[in-house]
């Protein structure tokens, strides 16, 4: 015989204005199983909770129903209160008579009647609640950080400095990401590599960071606290434990004119190369697509020249397993491809700008390399076609961003700032040069950002035109840029020597496949989905997997660093206790009745169901069965719905409870 206590909250005016709480308490006290029903102004307050605890003791209640707001608000509060009074916290139910009733209806009589029905459902459910215990899951206190850009580096250092081991996986030959290729960063105009490389070296030398460079995540098994990661170490053809980084190999390589990826095609590199001098690890890699030895067994000069005997043309990819308890995804971004070839049918390039057709129309990252002191032109600004110093440079904003027709509808956030930076750096290098910026809006919302843009205009003489560019044509040696200034209402034509396009920010290639491996959601653009955009920006809906940096949304370096530290702090919270507690409202399979059809296994979106065997104590095989992994199950109930033998059921929301609730209404 149930002894259920029902506590109806006024929630101040929020409920009591529309629902007659006195009449409600009267009606509810007559429901079968209800021992007592009362109403109170703020049940969530300290005195309110005290009232609940008193009644549990006084009336020897075995279940409690709180009729108030959404469980999202205070379910934890009331469970804790019940536990303090000695009642199992999973014998607490909440009837939402605020969001589901008083906040959406006006008719007092009808609202009160509906509130009574809602409470009836919770009472029926409470009658069949079991006492449950939280699930304890062991935790491996090691973290995986995927991506070695500034966000990944920050997260790895924070976690490692907190005392935990970090495994970092970076798919390029060196860590550093896009930031390592930038010239200077806004708003301070710090030299990008100068502020990043100390961090890179720290990562490379940190006793608790294990760096897998030129590697990718192959597969992910397991769940929070207990992940098994398989990492593919791609073949470098160089044994970095023997290599001293002396550079004899790349100086002797005869194939020196491959387009450099690090320079985005603005420079060249040998077939055996280190992407940039400050690379971590500062060890070369051989490009198997161009190396003559690998393709047709020719050359081999580097192997002969190497005094350390570090070259190994027989190298192969290797798979390595690592066990970690938490994963941080920091895979960063790439730029929108302005040319005609696109990886997505809804995108089309900007043929009207002649990118790919005219050598002197380049994108923003390519311009960074031309500006960079360690770039292909050693920081002297030379335009790609003839190496001449450009006297008139046009910068075009929003190429691919804010474009519903053939680009991406969102704003890429950083372009207004880096375009102003580009205009300034250009002027600092070419004193008699003129920067022309075509903009739609200037978005400069960070600390010191607005002042930074004004500096570009007021001190460095950049001309800002408010309007788009319609077409770039080649007339003689000049690029004729035709745009508009809508503030004056006139067309603007500029004869440019060089045009820089601020291309949109997109998530890096391969992020969708990685997200699938991690069970993390992503939006239509490929940006990884956070749990809540306001309150949980670095968590994902996959427990134990966190995100930071540009892989979640376009953002600049300060924000990426801040998010990385936030993700690291979430990881350290995960590692704080010896065991992790998971909610016990998960599925369970009755192994006696299970027919092992595995419909549940195929249906489970969290891969939480395994094939298992039932054996006698002596180990004799009895039957196959499906079994839920309590670490992975998220309690969605899909297996319950598909099971043909009704062997699957959901603790905390059993089929029996559902039928009882439905029947109570008809």
């Amino acid at each position, binding site marked *: 015989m149930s002894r259920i206590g029902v506590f109806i909250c006024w929630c101040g005016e929020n409920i009591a204005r529309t629902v007659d709480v006195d009449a409600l308490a009267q009606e509810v006290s007559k429901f079968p199983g209800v021992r007592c029903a009362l109403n109170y102004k703020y049940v969530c307050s300290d005195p309110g909770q005290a009232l609940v605890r008193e009644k549990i003791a006084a009336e020897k209640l075995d279940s409690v129903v709180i009729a108030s707001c959404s469980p999202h608000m205070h379910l934890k509060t009331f469970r804790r209160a019940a536990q303090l009074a000695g009642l199992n916290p999973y014998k607490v139910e909440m009837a939402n008579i605020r969001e589901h009733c008083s906040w959406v209806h006006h008719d007092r009589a009808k609202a009160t009647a509906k509130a009574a029905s809602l409470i009836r459902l919770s009472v029926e459910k409470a009658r069949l609640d079991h006492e449950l215990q939280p699930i304890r899951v062991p935790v491996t206190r090691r973290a995986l950080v995927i991506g070695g850009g500034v966000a990944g580096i920050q997260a790895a250092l924070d976690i490692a400095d907190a005392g935990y081991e970090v495994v970092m996986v970076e798919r390029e030959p060196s860590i550093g990401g896009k930031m390592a290729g930038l010239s200077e960063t806004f708003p301070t105009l710090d030299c990008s590599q100068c502020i990043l490389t100390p961090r890179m070296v720290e990562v490379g030398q940190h006793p608790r960071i294990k760096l897998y460079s030129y590697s990718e995540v192959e597969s992910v098994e397991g769940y929070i606290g207990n992940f098994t990661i398989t990492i593919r170490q791609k073949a470098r053809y160089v044994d970095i434990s023997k290599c001293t980084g002396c550079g004899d190999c790349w100086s002797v390589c005869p194939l020196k004119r491959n387009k450099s990826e690090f320079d985005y095609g603005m420079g060249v590199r040998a077939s055996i190369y280190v992407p940039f001098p400050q690379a971590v690890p500062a060890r070369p890699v051989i490009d198997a697509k161009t190396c003559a030895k690998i393709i047709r067994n020719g050359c081999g000069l580097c192997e002969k020249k190497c005094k350390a005997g570090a070259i190994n043309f027989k190298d192969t990819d290797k798979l390595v397993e690592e066990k970690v308890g938490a994963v941080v995804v920091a895979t960063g971004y790439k730029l929108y491809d302005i040319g005609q070839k696109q990886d997505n049918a809804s995108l089309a390039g900007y*043929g*009207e700008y002649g990118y790919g057709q005219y050598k002197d129309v380049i994108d923003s990252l390519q311009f960074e390399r031309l500006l960079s002191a360690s770039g292909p032109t050693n920081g002297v600004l030379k335009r790609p076609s003839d190496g001449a110093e450009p006297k008139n440079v046009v910068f075009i904003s929003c190429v691919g961003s804010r474009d519903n027709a053939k680009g991406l509808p969102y704003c890429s956030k950083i372009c207004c700032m880096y375009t102003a930076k580009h205009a300034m750096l250009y002027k600092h290098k070419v004193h008699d040069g003129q920067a022309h910026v075509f903009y739609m809006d200037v978005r400069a919302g960070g600390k010191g950002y607005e002042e930074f843009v004004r500096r570009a205009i007021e001190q460095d003489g950049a001309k800002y035109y408010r309007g788009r560019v319609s077409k770039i*044509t080649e*007339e003689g040696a000049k690029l004729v840029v035709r745009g508009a200034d809508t503030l004056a209402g006139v067309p603007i034509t500029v004869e440019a020597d060089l045009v820089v396009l601020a291309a949109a920010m997109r998530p890096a290639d391969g992020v969708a496949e990685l997200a699938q491996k991690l069970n993390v959601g992503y939006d239509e653009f490929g940006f990884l989905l956070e749990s809540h955009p306001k309150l949980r920006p670095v968590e994902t809906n996959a427990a134990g997997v966190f995100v930071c940096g540009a892989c979640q949304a376009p953002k600049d370096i300060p924000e990426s660093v801040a998010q990385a530290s936030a993700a690291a702090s979430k990881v350290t919270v995960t590692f704080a206790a010896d065991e992790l507690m998971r909610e016990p409202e998960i599925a369970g399979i009755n192994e006696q009745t299970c027919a092992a059809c595995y419909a549940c296994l195929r249906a489970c979106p969290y891969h939480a169901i395994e094939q298992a065997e039932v054996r006698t104590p002596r180990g004799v095989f009895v039957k196959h069965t499906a079994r839920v992994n309590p670490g992975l199950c998220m309690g969605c109930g899909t297996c319950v719905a598909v099971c043909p033998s009704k062997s699957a059921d959901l603790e905390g929301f059993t089929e029996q409870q559902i039928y009882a609730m439905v029947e109570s209404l008809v």
Partner: protein
Amino acid sequence: MNIGYYPGCALHGSSDDYEESLRACLNTLDVQLQEIDEWICCGATAAHSLNQKLSTALPARNLALAERGGFGEMLAPCPMCSMQLIKAQRALAENEGLRREMSGIVELEVRGTTRVLNLIQVFEQIGLDRLKAALKSPLKSLSAACYYGCLLTRPPDVVEFDDCEQPRSMEAILTALGAKTVDWSYRTECCGGGMTLASEETVLDLSHKILSNAAAHGANCLVVACPMCHVNLDMKQPDIEHRYGVRHGMVIYYLSDVVGMALGLPESALGINRHFVGKA
């Protein structure tokens, strides 16, 4: 190959050298053109500028006539005509209410099932391999600027042909026939279209820019696939030269002219001697 043929007013008017050219050329390639009986003007700029309903109705009548004649495909060599016809065909195919309304207005049932092709598409259907096989005189002396104008590739969601900013379909044909094509910037800039009589200065200004850019990029001729473009660049070239005090001397070929020449046809058979600007 048997295909419906919608000449349009220009090709039966002062631009009938284009018809002479394409008939001779396609005949050599065994393409039989069957003129749509009782075709009427597509409405051109005048209709879409002054009356929206008419700009759908006039093409609708032509589509109905094509359907009545049993044509699944129809060549419309003038891009103004082809664009208007395709626009009407798309709208009719998607909207039953429009089909009923237009069928009533044009007094013939129209379903919007005819596929309208431009001349480049017809050559593509014949196939570059067949063209190469039939090649008799490679176009070695040509350094051609392929000029597409406005309506072959725009609006892209209507005509769905080639790339609207960097088209290369004509270049592919010319390269297959041994010609050199130049990389230039005015492939899809407007020549002034049908404004030749209404606003001559606009046409002279725009066409002058096109001829200048082609010359600056090393072209010794232009290749076009539109009768209005041909008029503005060829017939008006003396006026352009007079107005800007510059000598262009740029031969303007129809696409069928150059293909025909490559297939061994004499210039007189292609109507090339009827152009205003001849070879220097």
